[in-house]
């Protein structure tokens, strides 16, 4: 047979087959259907009304034992509940026998817009009733006593609760916190935590002797998370941060100097105090790993020189001389 386009594909509904004994009423199915209307049950080829059997989990129970026969009972699954999804009956047919003048009928839960109503077997258009509550149907014209009102309620929450298959539509809210393991990361994947690098511009920074002075780093090389301002690093992601800072002091015999990392306004880590020679400038460096709470904790860099007189930082306006860097190593 020829087709325009791809050949049609089809797949049979999943089916279980049982052999009746004449006395056995309960049979174990391979799948737990949502309810009796989710399966078509036939005995010796005769379709059974759902009122003649019940389902509970994977157990199919007939109200009367089917006759003896080899593979004379078939159960064809119209839909199989998705595993891991809370399943709600997605179609429920209910018959009501109306009383005189009855207009309101309490139906099984349905999703508004997903209900069909029949009166004595005749389909009613939606203009003939109101179904906006999810649990009731109100006829515009009152029923006559003995009328059969049939509702077919559809509940679509199972579908709505499923993770959508649309590309780029699944958010992290579907993941349990901490569920992504190291092994799930691809090769070459790096973190995207905050990282900053800044250096002192050409502005003269004078350090009074023997006075710890906050160093100003006016020029940012990068500040990936906008966490650096006023020469202060206040990361908004909790975790452990690698911090590096370097300062350069003038060549002066007798000058000793150091650089310190201040956390929340207090000295936290210091580099080694260095004695500067008269022949060359003296660089001091500090490197530290510091835990930050991701909200109020902040870091600043202070310098101190002990020469007996005021000294200016040298090498300012060079990104490679007086700088402050920090980046997230690992989360909290």
């Amino acid at each position, binding site marked *: 047979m020829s087709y325009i386009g791809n050949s049609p594909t089809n797949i049979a509904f999943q089916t279980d087959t049982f052999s009746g004994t004449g006395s056995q009423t309960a049979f174990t199915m391979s799948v737990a259907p949502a309810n009796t209307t989710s399966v078509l049950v036939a005995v010796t080829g005769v379709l059974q009304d759902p009122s003649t059997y019940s389902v509970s989990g994977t157990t199919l129970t007939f109200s009367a034992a089917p006759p003896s026969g080899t593979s004379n009972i078939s159960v064809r699954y119209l839909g199989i509940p998705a595993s891991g999804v809370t399943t709600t009956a997605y179609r429920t047919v209910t018959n009501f026998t109306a009383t005189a003048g009855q207009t309101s009928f309490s139906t099984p839960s349905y999703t508004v817009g997903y209900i069909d109503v029949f009166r004595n077997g005749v389909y009613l258009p939606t203009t003939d009733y109101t179904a906006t509550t999810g649990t009731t149907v109100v006829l515009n014209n009152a029923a006559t006593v003995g009328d059969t009102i049939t509702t077919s309620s559809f509940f679509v929450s199972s579908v709505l609760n499923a993770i959508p298959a649309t590309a780029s539509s699944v958010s992290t809210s579907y993941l349990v916190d901490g569920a992504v393991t190291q092994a799930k990361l691809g090769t070459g994947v790096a973190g995207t935590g905050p990282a900053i690098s800044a250096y002192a511009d050409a502005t003269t920074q004078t350090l009074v002797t023997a006075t710890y002075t*906050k160093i100003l780093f006016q020029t940012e090389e990068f500040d990936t998370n906008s966490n650096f301002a006023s020469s202060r690093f206040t990361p908004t992601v909790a975790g452990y941060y690698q911090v590096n800072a370097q300062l350069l002091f003038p060549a002066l015999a007798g000058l000793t100097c150091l650089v310190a990392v201040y956390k929340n306004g207090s000295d936290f880590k210091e580099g080694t105090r260095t004695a500067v020679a008269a022949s060359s400038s003296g660089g001091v460096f500090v490197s530290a790993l510091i835990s930050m709470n991701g909200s109020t904790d902040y870091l600043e860099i202070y310098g101190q020189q*002990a020469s007996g007189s005021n000294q200016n930082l040298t090498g300012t306006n060079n990104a490679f001389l007086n700088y402050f860097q920090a980046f997230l190593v690992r989360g909290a």
Partner: protein
Amino acid sequence: MTLYEKIIALYPALTLQDFTTTIRLQNDSDGKGDYIAKWEHPTLPRPTEEQLA
């Protein structure tokens, strides 16, 4: 005159070493100037505001 110079004038015996151990002068570069962040000298009392004025 800097805060350091005022303190040295008050206590000439202090050395630069003292200012790296028991005494900490600090400047937060916020325009408020130098201040005594720590004074833990074993014998000399912390200077008063009047003495440093």
